[in-house]
């Protein structure tokens, strides 16, 4: 518990770096930034591994407390966002897919429709958009909640009561977000593909709905489903890890919370893009 948090943060005690005077030279500036980046990365990876460890090790601990918390977090990072996601999915369908469909139809390339849709919507845009939206709506709330709790000494209070802060505060958020991003991505993709066709239909594109969905179904293979699930769960997991890490990192003061929230969101986006590029390598490899 205490040692769990301690381990992760001892690695990233970057105060010395931040405070040290810096000679006026770009290379030094660059060097410090690089070091800070590497140290943050190290801390994040350590925190992610600790969180994973706690999820498995304490799977049976205090289920009556943790399960309702997990349900609460799934509702918050998933169900509560559904209306917004439907709106975004409709917009995505009308703006991007509809136009792509009509453009492809105009040059007579409707044969490429299925593979284009799968690459653009299923593999890339759907998961990434879902992750960024969840990060913006729920991830920021995590940093602020946990940062405030940390600054007000609630984390010490948990430790004094023998409750592992990683187990009580982080695990439900991580699981909730992983499930939330996955489920929302699925809805986003389905609605976007449907509304995209609707838009194309309204523009009188000569394409029967049967052909459209048949092409998409043919362009999908089993690996797409597996990788989509893996990727969205990874997005959710790491967004939650980044936001929780920054919320709980170092004994915060109240005035630090807003600064930390901004940093966490930025790093959340970066982490999503990095994971995404890892998956591109996987797609290219197959």
């Amino acid at each position, binding site marked *: 518990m205490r040692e769990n948090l301690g381990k992760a943060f001892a690695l990233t005690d970057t105060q010395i770096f931040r405070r040290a005077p810096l000679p006026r030279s770009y290379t030094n500036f660059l060097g410090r930034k690089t070091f800070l980046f590497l140290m943050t990365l190290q801390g994040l990876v350590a925190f992610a591994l600790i969180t994973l460890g706690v999820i498995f090790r304490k799977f049976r601990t205090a289920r009556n407390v943790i399960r309702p918390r997990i349900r609460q977090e799934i509702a918050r990072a998933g169900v509560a966002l559904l209306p917004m996601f439907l709106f975004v999915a409709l917009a995505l369908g009308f703006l991007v897919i509809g136009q792509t469909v009509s453009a492809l139809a105009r040059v007579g390339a409707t044969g490429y429709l299925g593979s284009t849709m799968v690459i653009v919507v299923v593999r890339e845009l759907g998961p990434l958009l879902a992750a960024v939206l969840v990060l913006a709506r729920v991830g920021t709330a995590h940093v602020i909640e946990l940062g405030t709790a940390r600054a007000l000494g*609630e984390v010490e*209070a948990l430790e004094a*009561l023998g409750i592992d802060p990683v187990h009580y505060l982080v695990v439900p958020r991580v699981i909730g977000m992983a499930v939330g991003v996955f489920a929302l991505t699925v809805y986003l993709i389905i609605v976007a593909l449907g509304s995209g066709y609707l838009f194309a239909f309204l523009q009188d594109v000569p394409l029967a709905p049967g052909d459209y969905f048949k092409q998409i179904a043919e362009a999908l293979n089993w690996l797409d489903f597996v990788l989509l699930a893996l990727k969205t769960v990874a997005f959710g997991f790491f967004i939650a890890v980044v936001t929780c890490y920054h919320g709980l990192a170092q004994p915060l003061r109240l005035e630090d919370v807003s600064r930390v929230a901004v940093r966490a969101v930025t790093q959340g986006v970066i982490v999503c893009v990095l994971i995404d590029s890892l998956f591109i390598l996987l797609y290219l490899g197959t």
Partner: protein
Amino acid sequence: MSETENTAAIEMREVSVGAMRDISFIVLEDVTWSVAAGEFWTVAGQPYSGKSDFLMLAAGLMAPVRGECRLFGTDTRTFGEAKLAERLHVGFVFAGGQLFNQLTIRENVALPLQYHHDLAPAAAARAVERLLELLELTPLADLTPVSISENWRARAALARALILKPKVLLLDNPLAGLGIRHLHWWLRFLDRLSRGHDWCDDRPMTVVVTTDDLRPWRDPSRKFALLRDKKFFLLGHWNEVEASGDALVKELLAEPMETVE
């Protein structure tokens, strides 16, 4: 007599206390202190004399920089998850209460019980309601900590520390900022706890409080210690405190300044 009753409840040997926020900053040095089970200690010191850090170390929330601190004979350095049961013998009440702001008072009090005994809210309800009733918190149980007064927040923090029926209760400046009615209630209640309250099965509880005002704690049955200039001074019982004639003691008793000189 069982083994735990023979060993001291809290024992410190040549302990150096680091600050919670920065462990390399030493706030107290060379503390040697032994608290027998059932004793009531008052540790007095000026603000920023390291009272909170000292108390957190005594609770095993922080490891000593040097020396060793034992709770019921167990070194607090080893207080990991394996020694959770030992750790839960200690109840800790923070200076500001430090309640969980997202939870109601009832949920705050119930959380430790539910977590450690893996209970659903309904299963924990009886014990929680009884304790809330005992501390007169029932009418406020569904409110969040932010919406009740400081007086009641302090009491809710006491309830949260008592729900697991600890053997040792550590309170960080519990009387700070309390109204006079609440202050008398606290003194009476802590006295009952230390002599044995039926909530804790009439077992006398070991109580340690810190304070920056000695006046309310004047009592011949309590023992006293003083924190000054990074040092820990044992004063003993109240008559010894009065006999000490120490300038800081007089200050903490808020006696007129001319008698200090």
